[in-house]
């Protein structure tokens, strides 16, 4: 996988059809933490990570096994907002949730316009918040 995008080895997936999550973040410490939160959330499985916007786009375009993308807003190359917009332009329907340490009120006004289903404050990431973000985006809460 190009540009630091990696796949986790296939974990034994029960047939209850878990939600397959792809995480994009350039901070290794936080990436490891998201990994633990997903591992502790029943019904969710981590299927891959990327550490830049470009690597994320490449991975998302070539893979069909992703249900949900946790996307950091500030990435070294493209912003998460830009990655989501491009995916939406390409007709992708994957659930994209932006993540950041900054107050969502400080995000640019157009951040949630296209391709973004929700926002998670990084410090408030819990198993419940992760499931909640999925439910809001897909089942209307």
């Amino acid at each position, binding site marked *: 996988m190009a540009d630091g995008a990696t796949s986790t080895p296939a974990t034994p997936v029960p047939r209850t059809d878990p939600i397959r999550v792809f995480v994009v973040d350039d901070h290794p*410490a936080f990436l490891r*933490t998201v990994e633990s939160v997903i591992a502790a959330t029943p019904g969710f499985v981590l299927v891959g990570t990327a550490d830049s916007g470009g690597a994320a786009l490449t991975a998302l375009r070539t893979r069909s096994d992703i249900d949900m993308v946790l996307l950091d807003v500030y990435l070294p190359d493209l912003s998460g907002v830009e990655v989501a917009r491009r995916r939406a332009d390409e007709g992708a329907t994957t659930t994209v949730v932006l993540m950041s340490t900054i107050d969502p009120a400080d995000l640019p006004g157009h951040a949630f316009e296209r391709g973004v289903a929700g926002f998670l404050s990084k410090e408030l990431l*819990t198993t419940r918040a992760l499931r909640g973000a999925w439910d809001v985006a897909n089942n209307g809460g």
Partner: protein
Amino acid sequence: MTRAVGLDRESIAELRAQFRTEQIASWIAGGGVLFLAVVFTEPWGLLLGVCIAVMALVRLPAFTAIDRDDVVGALWWSAAGTWGIALIVAAVLPGATPIMILNLIGPLVTGAIYLDARSMRRLIGAGVVVAVGLGALGFRSSSTGAENALPAWLFQLIMIVYLAVHVMVMSGSVSVANRVRIATLEAVVDANDALRSADADLRESRRRVISAGDRERVRLERNIHDGAQQRLVALAVQLQLASQFARNGTPITPEQLDAMHTESREAIAELRELARGIYPSVLTERGLEDALRSVARRSPNPVEVVYDDQVDLPTDDAAAIYFICLEALQNIAKHAGPDASARLTLEARDGDLHVSIVDDGLGCNPAEIGRSRGVVNMIDRASALGADLTFESEPGRGTSVCMVLPDRPIATVDAT
């Protein structure tokens, strides 16, 4: 002080030269008249020659006055002699009166060039009195007839030569004075240009200082956001997860706790490093010498610190010197090569403070030192202190950075 306002040495020297020319002309005139009086045995001529010589003597104090820079006094003595000659000539030779108008005007022209308004008003007042006297003498009906002692052609020739010489001297002095004034004006314009250029440099430096401050804030924000903040966020999420595990009865592994501990220690280390970059606490707590020694110890190259302990500096100076030395030592670490060693000296000499950082490393072409951001920061910090900063380098011969902070009061150390 009787010196006229705004005259420089050059103007005064020019005035003295003009006096000398006039003096020589007066001696020649007096001597010439006496010679002719003897040749043509004319008693009026003898009287005239003697009077001209006396008036030439009257002019002499002008030289001592101008040697004392007393321009006003000098002009008065000179005018007295010149006008005296005009009045005597008009009295003895009424036919020469029109030519003597030049003697009337000469001191007024010179005065107009060199005198301030108040002195000039007095000179004009005296000139008016002399003009009335000259007119009265020139237009009187009776004549001594002395001009008839000479052949008419000779009398006319003398008057023409006198006229020509006078015009030459007078226009020469006006043009010299004008040249001096223009040179003075050009010097003022040059000084003004230099001031403008210094002002532009100052604005540019101030703009750089502000934008360096902004850049520094952006850098800090990025460092905090990418470093300590991310670690603390990760730690918060991990703690929340651990709390959830504890509630569920899921065991928390020692590795998970170790990871959290590592995360918190990394965050603390990053914050400490950041704080040191913002302002070194050693500088506020233990002073410049310890701060410099601490920087020297952290440097990868051996650095000897020579610190004159008579030096006691205000906080602003200390901070600027610290950051300039820090930048210089970082440059040595980056560019001087692993084998380079350096010497950092700070000493008080002749009331100034001298700071130098000299290394024996690879050196470089001085033109390359020029405009790196770090070097520009050093220059800006130095100029904010009114200090001169110089860089010297040569390939293979190391680099030296020297700064002189002028007029720094030095704490006197009590020997007892």
